[in-house]
């Protein structure tokens, strides 16, 4: 049995290598990771946008730059055009000895209130009655980072699943499924063989994309534990896609729908009120998400071998695995009819 499973997997690998699928499969999450990584500082660095005319003066312009990004435009007209643009930007112009703030009127609270305060601060500096000093907790990573990292990790696993799904569809379309049906291969062996490649890809993809993204530091063993717990995910997703779809086009529809359920829903859980969270308990990806959240957020703190307490990680991974297996078992019943190798 194992021989047949590995024969199928080997054929997949050969085909994938020839097709460059493997290369693309490895590239995309890394590319995504790079894009997100480049993007993250922009999010963290967003303070307020200020636009000034030259008569504001170099000194003031320079001091303003300590509070937000400053753009110097030619004149009042250009300033108004800039303020009216889609994003939030506040204009500052000189009026005699003092200054005026120019707003569009629809800016978010920060941009509408802060510029005047900034000007006030610059004028009042030194005369303030209160001393302000600062310190910090040393949490250097942006809170958005874990969320994006989890997104990448989940996506990597789902990509593995998609590859599995589409190879099943390809078998259906080319008729090789029928050819396999008249071989000693059983249905379970077929699914196992198809899954090997996707599963094998999923783990390196998870680690690789997290590394490229710079999601560290995190406890690698814990990430592994959570990933293994969720590894069946790739199989489930692939099986679901491959069975339900009769051709490539339906396959896309299935991937879309499945992606929404498997990927977006857990991410939405971060904004959904707590009482509704129970709605998501049946989703295998929800638990994997929770596991990654635990591990990747905790990783922000320094400390070798640190990370989240194992006492929390292991149960999470365990639940994840259990839900995955249950889900797979339930789907198997439903889907075996659709993936009829014989009859």
């Amino acid at each position, binding site marked *: 049995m194992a021989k047949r499973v590995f024969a199928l997997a080997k054929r997949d690998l050969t085909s994938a290598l020839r097709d460059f699928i493997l290369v693309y499969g490895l590239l995309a999450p890394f590319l995504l990771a790079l894009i997100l990584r480049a993007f993250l500082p922009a999010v963290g660095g967003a303070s307020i946008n200020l636009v000034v005319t030259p008569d504001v003066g170099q000194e003031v312009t320079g001091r303003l730059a*300590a509070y937000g990004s400053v753009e110097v435009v030619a004149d009042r007209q250009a300033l108004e055009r800039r303020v009216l643009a889609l994003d939030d930007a506040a204009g500052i112009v000189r009026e005699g000895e003092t200054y005026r703030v120019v707003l569009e009127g629809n800016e978010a609270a920060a941009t509408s209130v*802060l510029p*005047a305060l900034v000007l006030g601060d610059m004028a009042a500096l030194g005369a303030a009655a209160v001393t302000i*000093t600062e310190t*910090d*907790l040393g949490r250097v990573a942006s*809170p958005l980072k874990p969320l994006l990292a989890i997104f990448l990790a989940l996506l990597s696993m789902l990509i593995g699943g998609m590859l599995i799904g589409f190879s099943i569809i390809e078998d259906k379309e080319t008729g090789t499924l029928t050819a396999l049906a008249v071989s000693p291969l059983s249905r379970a062996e077929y699914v196992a063989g198809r899954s090997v490649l996707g599963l094998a890809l999923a783990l390196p993809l998870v680690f690789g994309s997290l590394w490229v993204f710079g999601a560290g530091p995190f406890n690698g063993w814990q990430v592994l534990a959570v990933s293994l717990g969720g590894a069946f995910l790739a199989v489930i997703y692939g099986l679901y896609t491959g069975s339900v779809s009769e051709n490539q*086009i339906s396959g896309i529809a299935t991937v879309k729908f499945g992606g929404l359920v498997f990927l977006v829903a857990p991410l939405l859980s971060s904004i959904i009120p707590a009482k509704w969270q129970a709605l998501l308990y049946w989703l295998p990806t929800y638990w994997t998400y929770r596991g990654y959240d635990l591990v990747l957020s905790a990783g*922000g703190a320094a400390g070798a071998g640190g990370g989240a307490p194992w006492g929390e990680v292991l149960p999470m991974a365990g639940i994840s695995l259990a839900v995955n297996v249950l889900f797979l078992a339930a789907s198997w019943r439903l889907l075996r009819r659709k993936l009829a190798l014989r009859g």
Partner: protein
Amino acid sequence: MGRRLLSLWGKDLKVVIRNHYLTVVVALAVLYVLAINFLIPAQLAAAADVVIWDQTESQAMLQLYQVAGSSAGQALAVNSEAAFSEAMEAGDTRVGLRVEGRDLPERIVVTYQGYENERTRRLFEAVLRAQTAAVTGSPWPVFATDTLRPAQPAERLPFNFSLLPVFIFSEAIMVGVLLVAALLYSEKDEGTLRAYRVTPGGVLEYLLAKSLAMGVLGVIFTVIVTVFTVGLRVDWVPILGLTFLSTVVMTLVALVAANLFGTISQFLLTGLVITVAFGLPVAGYFLPSLSPWWFKVLPSYPLVFALREAYFPSGNPAAITGAVWQMLVTLAIVLPLAAVAFSRQLVRREA
């Protein structure tokens, strides 16, 4: 050419519908309606809470923060070092204030998380100084403000409805990216592409018809979601017009890329990258100060703002026309690109 285009459009629609894609679009639309109406909150739980340990007699700063309201975040009052540390540990977006002084604030120690950049910190401190000036009765210079467009709706849009433009973008418009490629590869495999090539039909109309078919799906999605969330009284022309136009443009972008690959499995991942890359400017929708130059180049950036303006007008129709223009320019670029890429690949892959 028009007659052929219509015929191709009809054929592509039939194929898409008979592949159950319409069912999926409707099902997704229903899911989103449910999510928007029932699941997603109207107010996001306030993220930026402030932990205050006001050690002064008057507790003036604490009162100020408590009265100031919850638009930016809650004020969490603590009375000890231990409570302070615990409260700070608990939230990764919290800021801590230790207010020291006898009666009125004399010294404030701000504890940040650590990831806040210099500008953010200076801004916060500017706010603090203004607040302490108010509390201690010190003078604080005031500056006048000019508002260019005074007539704005007073209330902020509820969060769940504000997501409408984002959902329309991600589901109605980006849905075509993968699907249109699948349609193309299917016809290649089926052999019908070859059958088409020996007819008078051209490349432009072939590609455009597929994009137009996707446009129809996008419009259907938009109609369902709109009607069952905000209702019938909306400005349908810009909403549907924007949806249709941008779906067509995005699918053409996908078609340019689809020619680099031969099967859907190969294209799948590139399609994902395209989807994410074009989706990133949506962050600017949520963080209006976030606007790097490359956001503005991608058509998705003006699109989500234009959709918001179409759904919830704030007297800024330029947002819509601007987006339309950008879409048209993008269309003028990608349509010939797609045609050229397609023609090149057609002959190369014939075997």
